[in-house]
């Protein structure tokens, strides 16, 4: 009987210990995923940008959070215009410029990423500050391409 009581006490102590450890790890952010980080960067106004998107994080230094996110999703033109409007971004035609912001950084691999190849004048784009990030959106033939860079 006494041994059983000790056993229960030890189990209880173990559970309390594990609970405290888990709480500490949670407080330290060990359970924060990159998806949550993306959502946090976009803020409430920009949540819709990442809806149903495939995305990849760019983390050049593991001691720091991702510097950027690259995302692709299927979206029609009306949806793109609504999305830009709801995030306060102005839609323009894709300019006749080669812009480095559309190129995936080294180490980032995202299938279906065709943003740099959108022909000038035939696609749409929108850019500006959204939440805690600077966002570049490009749309062409039913696909949305997004670049979300952590704002400095």
């Amino acid at each position, binding site marked *: 009987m006494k041994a059983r009581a000790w056993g229960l006490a030890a189990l209880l102590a173990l559970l309390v210990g594990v609970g405290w450890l888990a709480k500490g790890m949670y*407080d*330290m*952010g*060990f359970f*924060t*995923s*990159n*998806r949550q980080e993306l959502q*946090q960067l976009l803020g409430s106004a920009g949540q819709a940008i990442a809806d149903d998107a*495939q*995305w*990849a*994080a760019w*983390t*050049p*230094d*593991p*001691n*720091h*959070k991702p*510097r950027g996110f690259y995302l692709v999703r299927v979206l029609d033109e009306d949806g793109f215009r609504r999305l830009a409007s709801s995030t306060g971004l102005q839609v323009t035609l894709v*300019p*006749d*410029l*080669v*812009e*480095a*912001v559309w*190129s995936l*950084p080294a*180490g980032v691999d995202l299938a279906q990423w065709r943003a740099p190849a959108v022909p000038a004048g035939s696609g749409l784009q929108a*850019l*500006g*500050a959204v939440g805690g990030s*600077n966002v570049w959106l490009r749309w062409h033939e039913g696909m949305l391409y997004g670049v979300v*860079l*952590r*704002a*400095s």
Partner: protein
Amino acid sequence: MAGFRFPGAIGNGMSTYIDVGTLTRAVSMPPGLIDPLDHAKHWVRQQIRQRSTTVIQGAGELAYRVVMQELRALHGDIQAKVDYIATLPGELRDRVAADFFSSFFDHYLPKKFIHHFVYGNGKQIKLNLKEMIDCNPSINLLESTPFNNRLSKLRSEAASRQSRVDYPFTLEMRAIALTNGTLGQFTTKLNGLIQVQADGSWVAEGRMEFADDWDFDPKDLDRGGRSASGEAKTRVAHAFLPGKAFSISSESADFRQTERDARVVWAGGTPVPAYDKVSAADIGVTRPER
């Protein structure tokens, strides 16, 4: 150097010899008896455990070697190592802590900064151009919201005028150094000129300097910008590395960025990450999240 040996001169199998380096007569113990060095180490180890400050400080180099031996015996248990270092007295703790934390880096700059943190008494460091480059900074003007806002306005203006628009600017923005243990997230101070053409192409060029406080400051995990592992490492150093915070400034360097550049173009070229040993090991076993 073994020196010249004269067997049996002081009895009981001990031998004396003259060291040719110092020309002093020394004694060596015969095999089978207690090695005086081992005995001394054992005694110093006991003193360390009892935290006999005066005795340990007197033991100097021997105490340092004993402590490093003890740390090696703890293998990969970093928590046990930092706990052990925290129990050491004054100067010995500083030296061991500096060496222990430096051992996580292969690069010379973090070692320099750790040494300066422990022994520099808060004196400012000014980076020269080579050190700026060796920090491997990643600086992209497009990460700055004020820069983007200004650029948008200038593009509209240039498009409506159908001519080039020039705008002198000063900017402070955060960037990251990809050599771990150097500047981490730091401030880049830039001043120069933005030129925007009617077609939206642009060039920003001028001079830049780096600034940082090297202080292991714990930050909020949501807003601080460090990853969980980065924050954990910073907090361990904050708690266990004795020293004084210092500020870092730098020389001024030319920079240039256009719409075709993913980051500023300068003497540093493309940054190449130099990871600390823990990060390097992490990268080896984790895959990026999708």
